[in-house]
C-alpha cells in the first residue's frame, strides 16, 4: 500500500498552542487581579463550577449535576434541526447544481433569504412554534440549510463533465450515475457544507434556547446571567465550544467511515 499523508508530532501539538496560551493569560490576569472576579472568575473557580455542573450530585448545589440532561436536550435539538437541514438541503442542492432551470428559479430567493440575519426569524418562530423544541429546531434547520444547500449546489455544478461522460459511456444510467459518479465527485464540497452547517447549528441552538426554555446549554447560560453566576456562563461557553468541536470531528469521522470518496478526498 502507498504511504499517505505522513504527519509529525509537531503538527499534533500545534492546534493546542493557542488555547494553552489563552489559558496562561487568563491565569495571569486573575492572579494580578486587574479584572474583578465578578466580571471574570479565575480558572480555578470555573473548573470547580464545571466539576459541580458535570459530576455533582443533583440538588446538592445550584446547577450541580445538570449537565447530562442539558446536553441531551441540546443535542436532540441540534440533531433534529441539522438532520432536517440535510434532508432538504442536500437533495435540493444536488438538483439545482445539475438542473439550470431549478438553479435559476431558486438561486435568487435563497440568496435573498440568506441575507436575513437569523435573529430576525426568532420573533416569527416564537409566534409560530411557541417556546421550546420546535422553535429551536426551526432556527437550527434554517441556519444549517444555507451552507449545506449552497456548497452542495456548487459541488454538483462543478463536477467535471468528463467524469459524467466517462460514467455514461461505461453504462451507468441516471439514478446509479447520481450515486456512483455525481455524489462522490461532489463529496469534498458536500463535506464542507455539512461541517459548516453543523457548526452554525450550535450557534443557533443557543439563540433558540435563550428564549426561556427550562433546559439546554443555552438556557443554562441565560439562567446563570440572571443569577450572576459568571463562572457557570464561562463553563457553558467552554462546553459549547468543546462539544461543537467534538461534533465536527465526529461528523468528519462518520463521513470518512461511510464514504470512500470522503475518505480519499481530504
Amino acid at each position, binding site marked *: *500500500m*502507498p504511504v499517505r499523508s505522513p504527519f509529525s508530532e509537531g503538527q499534533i501539538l500545534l492546534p493546542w498552542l493557542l488555547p494553552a496560551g489563552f489559558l496562561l493569560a487568563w491565569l495571569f490576569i486573575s492572579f494580578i487581579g486587574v479584572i474583578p472576579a465578578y466580571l471574570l472568575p479565575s480558572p480555578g473557580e470555573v473548573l470547580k463550577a464545571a466539576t459541580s455542573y458535570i459530576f455533582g450530585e443533583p440538588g446538592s448545589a445550584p446547577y450541580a449535576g445538570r449537565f447530562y440532561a442539558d446536553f441531551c436536550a441540546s443535542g436532540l435539538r441540534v440533531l433534529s434541526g441539522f438532520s432536517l437541514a440535510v434532508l432538504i438541503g442536500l437533495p435540493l442542492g444536488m438538483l439545482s447544481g445539475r438542473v439550470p432551470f431549478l438553479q435559476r428559479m431558486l438561486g435568487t430567493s435563497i440568496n435573498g433569504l440568506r441575507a436575513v440575519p437569523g435573529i430576525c426569524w426568532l420573533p416569527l418562530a416564537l409566534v409560530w412554534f411557541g417556546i421550546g423544541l420546535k422553535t429551536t429546531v426551526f432556527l437550527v434547520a434554517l441556519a444549517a440549510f444555507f451552507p449545506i444547500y449552497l456548497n452542495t449546489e456548487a459541488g454538483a455544478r462543478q463536477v*467535471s463533465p*468528463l*467524469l459524467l*461522460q*466517462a460514467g*455514461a*459511456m*461505461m*453504462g*451507468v444510467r441516471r439514478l*446509479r450515475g447520481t450515486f*456512483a*459518479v455525481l455524489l*462522490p*465527485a461532489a*463529496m469534498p464540497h458536500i463535506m464542507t457544507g455539512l461541517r459548516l452547517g453543523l457548526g452554525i447549528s450550535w450557534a443557533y441552538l443557543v439563540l433558540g434556547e435563550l428564549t426561556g426554555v427550562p433546559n439546554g446549554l443555552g438556557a443554562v447560560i441565560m439562567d446563570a446571567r440572571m443569577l450572576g453566576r459568571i463562572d457557570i456562563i464561562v463553563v457553558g461557553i467552554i462546553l459549547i465550544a468543546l462539544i461543537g468541536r467534538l461534533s465536527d470531528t465526529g461528523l468528519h469521522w462518520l463521513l470518512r467511515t461511510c464514504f*470512500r*470518496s470522503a475518505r*480519499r*478526498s481530504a
Partner: protein
Amino acid sequence: MSRYLQVVQKNPSTVEQPYILDVEHVQKKFGNGDIGEKLVLADIGFSARRGELICILGRSGCGKTTLLNLLAGFIAPDQGTIRLHDQPVSKPGPDRCVVFQDDALFPWLTVRENIAFGLKGQRISSAQKEEEIDRFLKLVGLSEFAAYLPSEISGGMKQRVALARVLILKPQVLLMDEPFAALDAQTREEMQNLVLELWQQLAHTILFVTHDVTEAVLLADRILLFDKDPGRIKEDIRLELSRPREKEDQNFLSLCRVIRAQI
C-alpha cells in the same frame, strides 16, 4: 503517393472483415444565431471494418474530437447517421468506449476500483469479475499498483488505467482522443506499443484521433486525413506497411513525408 504504398506487402488480416461502423453524411454546426454558426464537420462519411485500426489525422480545430464525441454518442449530429451493427447511435454506451485526452479517472477510486467500475452492472459472478480485473491489470502492467489512487500514479499509468477500464467492457469500437498527447516521448512510445499489443490480442476496432503523423503511420491500417474549415475527410489512405513497423525504416519515413505534405 500510391507508389510508396505498393512496395510493401499486404496485411490481409483485417481487409476481409465485415464493416461494423457506418458514418453517412454527418454534419455538425456549433454556435447560435447571435455569434453566427460555425460548420465544424461537413458531410463526413466512412465505414470501419471489424478489427480495423483507423487513425483520424488532422490539425487542431479540424473537428476530430467532435467526430469522436458524435461516435461516442455524447452529442448528436445535425444531419446524417451513425450506425453500429446497423443500430443507430443515439446515446453513450459500453459498446463504444472512449479513452479521453485528459485524465478522466474517478479520483475517489483506486486503480483496481476504477477498472472494476463498468463491470458493476453486469451479470457475471463476482469471482469471475475479480478474475477479469486481475487479467486486465496484468495486461496493462499495473498489477502492483492496484491499490493506488489516481493522484498517486504518473500520467502514463493513468492512461493505462483508462485503457483497461474500457477494454474490460469488451467494446465493439474503442475511441481514443489524442490519448498520449500529454505524455513525454518515451512514455508515449511505450503506450503506442501497448495499444498495438492489446489490439493484436483483443482484436477490437480502434478509432484513434491524433495530430502526430508519425504516430498515425506507426499505428494505423487506415488514415482518415482531415481538412479544416469546415472539417471534412480530405483523403482516406490505406497503409500497407507490414507490422511491426520501424520508425527508422525508409518506407516508413517516406510515407510520413508524403502524408505530412498533404496536411
